């Protein structure tokens, strides 16, 4: 593959919280390198505190690496890039004082999208996620799943090439997240976005991703990358196939040991907030 196909290049990136010698000096991420291809969906999976969200925030320019570089479109990232990168956070990132459609429009206003397009783009994005009838509702009036759909619509309306999703379904129940995962797969297969998706769920990773990067326990780094060779959009029946179970089992095998290590660290050092 040529370098022209690389959307995001992570080179020798480390991140430490606190100064050396501090009581809570922690190496969250250790010398990690990763190329993310244009148009692929990459899942980051690993034990708690392994630095996968840290990596995502560094790609999005919300956090500066302690060492190493992140490049988006072959330019180094020095801060948020609202025209190239949109985020979907875990939960409650909608502004509670704005209705659903106002939330979407506010995002475009921050980004600097032309005012004349905002209403139209907001409606389209909300229709795409199935919230056509809930545009005037306030976040507090929606279920958790619907709130995450609205957050996704806000990110889609920004029409960025890159979408970074930080455990977007992490706070939802199993059934809601299954349905959202299926809808997401259909929705994203019609776009050519580059997506980085942090998750705890093995099934979600296999179901959505083109590649899954498995992280080791703290200090985190990428242990192995697994390809999921299955066309998009993924059919709901994919989860019942032999291939799905095998991939899931492979991931389980890779992760299990790391999770044990992470738990042992937590017991000794207390949880990382």
């Amino acid at each position: 593959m040529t370098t022209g196909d690389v959307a995001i290049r992570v080179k020798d990136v480390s991140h430490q919280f606190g100064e050396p010698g501090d009581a809570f000096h922690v190496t969250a991420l250790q010398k990690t390198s990763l190329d993310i291809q244009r148009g692929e969906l990459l899942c980051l999976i690993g034990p708690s505190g392994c630095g996968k969200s840290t990596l995502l925030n560094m790609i999005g320019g919300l956090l500066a690496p302690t060492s190493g570089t992140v490049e988006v479109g072959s330019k180094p990232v020095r801060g948020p890039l609202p025209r190239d990168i949109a985020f979907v956070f875990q939960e409650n990132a909608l502004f509670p004082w704005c209705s659903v459609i106002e939330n979407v429009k506010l995002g475009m206003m921050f980004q600097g999208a032309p005012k004349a397009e905002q209403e139209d783009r907001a409606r389209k994005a909300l229709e795409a996620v199935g919230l056509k009838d809930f545009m005037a509702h306030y976040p507090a009036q929606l279920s958790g799943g619907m709130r995450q759909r609205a957050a996704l619509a806000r990110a889609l309306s920004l029409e960025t090439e890159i979408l970074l999703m930080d455990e977007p379904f992490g706070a939802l129940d199993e059934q809601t997240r299954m349905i959202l995962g299926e809808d997401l797969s259909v929705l994203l297969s019609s776009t050519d976005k580059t997506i980085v998706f942090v998750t705890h769920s093995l099934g979600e990773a296999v179901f959505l991703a083109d590649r899954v990067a498995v992280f080791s326990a703290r200090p985190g780094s990428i242990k192995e990358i697994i390809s999921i060779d299955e066309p998009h959009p993924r059919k709901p029946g994919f989860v019942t196939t032999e291939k799905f179970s095998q991939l899931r089992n492979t991931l389980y095998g890779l992760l299990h040991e790391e999770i044990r290590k992470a738990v042992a660290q937590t017991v000794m050092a207390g949880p990382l907030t």
Partner: protein
Amino acid sequence: MSARRDRRDKLASRAVQAGFVVVLVALWYFGTTRWGVSHLLLPNPVKVWEELKDVLASGDYIPDLTITLSEVATAFVLSCTSGVIVGYVISRSQYAIRVFEPLLAGIYSVPIILFLPLYILFFGLGPASKIAIGTTISFFPIVLNTIAGFGYVEKIFITAARSMGASNYQMFRYVLLPAALPVILTGLRIGFTVALLSILGSETIASLAGLGHKIVHLAEAMETARMFAYIAFAVVIAAVLNMIVTSLEARAKRQ
């Protein structure tokens, strides 16, 4: 619970409340007419009512009311402006919050009214000392609520807005301000209430004019019935002002 039962319960409690007031007034009436309570200590309620009508009809209250209201208004404007500005500046730094929030909360818990003699010494017996004490006392709830409002906006809102490219002005106007407003408005309402209380109170302690001054003056002249009329008048004014401020707060929060 059904709506009808709700209404009946509400009606019943209203009846008890009204009955309580009626019994109180009846005790007051019989105390003065039948049971020989001195008219100097407790005037006849009918007499008080006559006096109140006279106060309202003659416009006797106007100079004192004007002074008290202008003192409250000036103090409130001063404490709002200074409290909100100082609170916002402190809220911009976690370090400043850690230093100043406990300090201000500590001073707020001191009965500042004890400093009134000092204020009289500095600002004289006129309105200036009332404005100064009212401003000081109402500054604290306003500044503390402004710090709480701006300083503890959920991080995820700020992160999300930053990731979408919000400018500093946009961050203030569309994220910080709407997130902080409900808490700040509560601070303004509390600030108004304590400004009113402390100004009426300090007028009764040492002053040349104002509703509080008038009430003490009448008490010293043994015009107890007229004093009661003025107390009733001041209570109604205070209740109306508090109702206005509370409803303004509720309306602003709805938007």
